[in-house]
């Protein structure tokens, strides 16, 4: 058996990061001027506005916020999320979406199999476990936010619903770039759902017609060919290497990382030095195109 060993390596400092405009750590006084509004990551203490997080100060007119580098997912209405069902309850499912409280998916907020549109009856309530049980993965959209911060989800579109065969990767929610669309059919033969909550779903591409006929709740359990599985595994390793080197995730960056990784074997991408090379190549290519 071949064993790969790397020696400890001193982490190289990135070329003197030009200190961001206004960096604060917990307890720092941001301003003593009382004319400002208190946003996220700040608190008032005897007429001084202080930071409660370590991060960068953002000002929008009179509002002051501190943006931390990483947190749990803070939902916003309209976000695409990937989540795992943790509990089946009274007319609702509870879904773990990496948020500070579990999200709620109401029975009335899902499309019934077959795309039927009608009132949910008592039979539907009894059939809930047929659709989704504990441990199932779903993609959904944030419909509302309750006053305590919990999210309410809906899957009332054919692109949302139960996720069948594929692979989930967990990254920090702040690394997922907000875009118009978070569903991507990549030209390499796999589809990626970049959930705003940092859960990324990678699956083999399926044609839309099949989904439409099943209503989004049928699971295709055909074995996935090994070439597709290799593409999925490669994408997973690419996404993880982008995430560990703090690159934003969106369709272009994932695709560039995939192309940069083509010269290596899939398993080699797990080695830290190669993962770094792939991330660096991607970063260079993105920087070249942007500027």
């Amino acid at each position, binding site marked *: 058996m071949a064993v790969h060993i790397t020696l400890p390596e001193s982490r190289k400092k990135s070329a003197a990061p030009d200190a*961001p405009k206004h960096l604060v750590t917990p307890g720092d006084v941001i301003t003593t001027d009382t004319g400002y509004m208190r946003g996220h990551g700040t608190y008032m203490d005897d007429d001084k506005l202080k930071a409660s997080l370590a991060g960068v100060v953002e000002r929008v007119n009179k509002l002051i916020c501190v943006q931390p580098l*990483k947190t749990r997912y803070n939902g916003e209405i309209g976000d695409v999320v990937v989540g795992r069902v943790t509990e089946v309850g009274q007319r609702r499912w509870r879904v773990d979406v990496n948020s*500070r409280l579990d999200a709620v998916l109401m029975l009335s907020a899902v499309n019934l199999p077959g795309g039927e549109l009608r009132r949910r009856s008592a039979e539907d309530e009894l059939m809930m476990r047929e659709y989704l049980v504990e441990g199932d993965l779903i993609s959904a959209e944030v419909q509302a936010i309750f006053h305590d911060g919990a999210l309410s989800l809906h899957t009332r579109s054919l692109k949302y619903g139960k996720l069948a065969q594929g692979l989930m990767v967990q990254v920090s929610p702040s690394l997922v770039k907000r875009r118009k669309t978070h569903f991507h059919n990549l030209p390499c033969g796999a589809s990626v759902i970049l959930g705003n909550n940092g859960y990324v779903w990678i699956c083999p591409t399926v044609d839309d017609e099949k989904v439409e006929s099943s209503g989004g709740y049928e699971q295709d359990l055909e074995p996935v060919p090994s070439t597709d599985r290799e593409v999925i595994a490669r994408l997973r390793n690419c996404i993880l290497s982008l995430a560990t080197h*703090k690159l934003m995730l969106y369709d272009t960056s994932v695709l560039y990382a995939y192309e940069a990784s083509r010269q290596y074997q899939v398993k080699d991408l797990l080695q830290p030095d190669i993962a770094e090379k792939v991330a660096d190549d991607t970063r260079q290519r993105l920087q070249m195109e942007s500027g």
Partner: protein
Amino acid sequence: MAGLEIISDQGYRIDGRRSSELRKVCARMGVFTQADGSAYIEQGNTKALATVYGPHEVRKGRGKIQHDRAVVNCQFSMATFSTGERKSRPKGDRRSQEMSMHLRQTFEAVIVTELFPRSQIDIYVQILQADGGNYCACVNAATLAVIDAGIPMKDYVCACTAGFIQDSPLLDISYVEESAGAPFLTVAMMPKSEQIVLLEMNSRLHADNMEKVLDLATQGCKDVFAVLDRHVRDHVSESHALMTAS
């Protein structure tokens, strides 16, 4: 410990420090990828590892749920290899339970728990090598981990010990000095607002000396804070530069 001199005639301690000198502090943030926040700290030969999960849904013991704030759950443990004598240390023993309770009280005071109703924050700390000042290393490591997790805190919490040996106050005492049997004080404080979060003394100390020792410990906390703050700023500016570059 008879015959062992804690302070030499020249005013140096056993490990070569002066009486108001801290041990060398090394810290790293974000050591684990799975946890929401994590940190590792070395204070001389005392090494501690802290991980923070949350705020998240309360999964076990729904009875604990607080409807107006988050629950803070701390767990302290010591590795089997952490002391001179190898010994398996169950998590539930009296000493570590007491330590867990002190940590919980410390962090409930500084974390802005009102922002996360009905959720839970887990802080797990482990001592990998014990050489005096275990509580301090735990608090300092946990502070870094909580900051790394992006959980709002009113201020840092920094902890430091100060002892009173051979009629002079000593800062940041090591295991040998701890076991000399002299009184020592453990202080956890918020360095910017100068509020004391936890104060513990292990044996009797003359009231006249109390102020001297407390002042020294306070100064030690501020010194620790200066080191931690530098680490946090380096970490934040480095990560921020990477994220904005792409």
